[in-house]
């Protein structure tokens, strides 16, 4: 579904990462991991064609990045919606269906096509369990509920590939577990390939087919138990790193290189309307 071959990206004249080679197979549930600021979001944005590669090549669904937008559901890393935003959740999902088409906003449409669209939106809302609050203004539902609506939006066009950028960020632990289980369910039941960016692997660890650990000079990919080890990560980051396994099976990575300061402003909590 996705292959990167010795790919590199430059941002502002600086090489963010280089020599990244990886592949994601059909129907897989793959996590992109790494310390803050290493360029995980940029990696998926490169796959979407939103960031150009400075070296190497990439194929997404058999095309160069940016050619297959219709078949990819994308959930960007995000803030929550402003509390004052008075647009319903169901409208947000509906925009995912045909929001880029020219025309008046969310028309009643003509007979059949409108009913098909409404039915598809209702179906996907039911799938993510968002039916109960989809009629409320999206700014007034909780973070976990917003995340479910946004997953519904990404899914509404039946994509072959779902790219989720930190969908568990800013959720409390029960919601993290619930949303992670939902994504797993979508992956297996709908046959959608899922690429998920995460800074904590634990909520999704048991579901993953494969992880991609991203470093400055390349990426390591493979099954979680092979990649998230002291030896592999120490080699990738060229600093001593220890991976500890807690008694409940959770992984703790100690000694990850810290983020460069310039790329971490997304965590300062500045509201992005």
């Amino acid at each position, binding site marked *: 579904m996705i292959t990167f071959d010795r790919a590199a990206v430059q941002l502002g004249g600086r090489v963010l990462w280089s020599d990244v080679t990886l592949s994601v197979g059909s129907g897989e549930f793959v996590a992109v991991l790494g310390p803050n600021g290493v360029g995980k979001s940029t990696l998926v944005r490169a796959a979407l064609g939103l960031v150009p590669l400075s070296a190497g090549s990439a194929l997404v669904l058999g095309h160069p990045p940016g050619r297959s937008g219709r078949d990819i559901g994308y959930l960007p890393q995000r803030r929550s919606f402003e509390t004052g935003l008075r647009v319903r959740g169901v409208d947000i999902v509906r925009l995912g269906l045909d929001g880029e088409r020219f*025309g008046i906003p969310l028309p009643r449409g003509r007979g059949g096509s409108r009913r098909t669209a409404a039915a598809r939106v209702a179906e996907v809302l039911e799938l993510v369990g968002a039916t109960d609050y989809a009629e409320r203004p999206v700014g007034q539902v909780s973070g976990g509920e917003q995340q479910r609506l946004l997953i519904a939006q990404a899914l509404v066009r039946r994509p072959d590939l779902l790219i989720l950028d930190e969908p568990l960020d800013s959720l409390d632990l029960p919601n993290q577990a619930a949303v992670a289980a939902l994504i797993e369910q979508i992956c297996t039941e709908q046959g959608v390939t899922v690429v998920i960016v995460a800074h904590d692997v634990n909520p999704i660890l048991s579901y993953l087919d494969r992880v991609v650990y991203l470093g400055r000079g390349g990426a390591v990919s493979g099954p979680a138990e092979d990649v998230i080890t002291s030896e592999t990560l120490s080699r990738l980051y060229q600093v001593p790193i220890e991976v500890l396994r807690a008694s409940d099976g959770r992984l703790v990575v100690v000694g990850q290189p810290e983020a460069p300061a310039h790329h971490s402003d997304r965590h300062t909590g500045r509201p992005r309307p």
Partner: protein
Amino acid sequence: MSATTAAGGWSWNVVTDVHQLFAYPFMVNAFLAGTIVAVAAAVVGWFMVLRRQTFAGHTLALIGFPGAAGATLVGISAAAGYFGFAILGALVVAATRASGTAYRGFSEESAVVGTVQAFALAAGFLFVALYKGFLNGVNSLLFGTFLGITVGQVWALLLVAVVALIVLGLIGRPLLFASVDPDVAAARGVQVRLLGVLFLVLLGVAVAEASQITGSLLVFALLVMPAAAAQRFTPRPVAGLVLSVVIAVTVTWLGLVVAYYSPYPMGFYITTFAFAVYLASFVVRYLVDRHGSAPARALHARVGT
């Protein structure tokens, strides 16, 4: 002391009153112009409120003032000045935004925009001072007038409004997408930035239109208040747009009628009526939210989509 300004006062006989009102061509023109302007401002304003760009709207209105004053000074119509400066201003605001971050929102540029705003107002003041004997005109440029609107002006307003609404009708859906969800919209191939620029130009057009009725300082009566009230009444996009238009047209008509029968200015009445609707929207929202979702559903059902 009121009611004597016009020929005959308010009689409580609505048919007679309306008949009397429309006996004057200038009142007919005022109603036509007011309606056109209200529709355009309400629709564009709905998007402006959604996009949190009221500050940009305010700036464009103030930039329109020196345009109108300058146009009068050099002897062309004030309308040309409003349109020219407001559209030019929209492009300038768009340029300052484009050089900033990719995120929308005006916080980063507010100092630049505020500076331009103040200078525009000062320049308008200079033009007014240069144009001797224009002192009465200042009031109407700033606070609006319904007197002396010609048939030609009505046609010009109509033409511009129709073009603006057609453009907005074409880009409405991607614009809504780009407004509420810019990242996903961009990933779907929506030209978020181009739409932003196009919308600012449309905003400039709507502001220039509204300025000709409400004056530069009171454009928000038609541009913000109906749209903001409509969004409080309903979160549905199409219902909100329709409601915004209904509110704007209603307050404009009411304002014109009351101003005709009273010695006080129309700008005051339109703004006050719009303000009343805005306050009412808060009360209704509070009551609906307090009494749970059943009345909310009833309200939505009544308003429709």
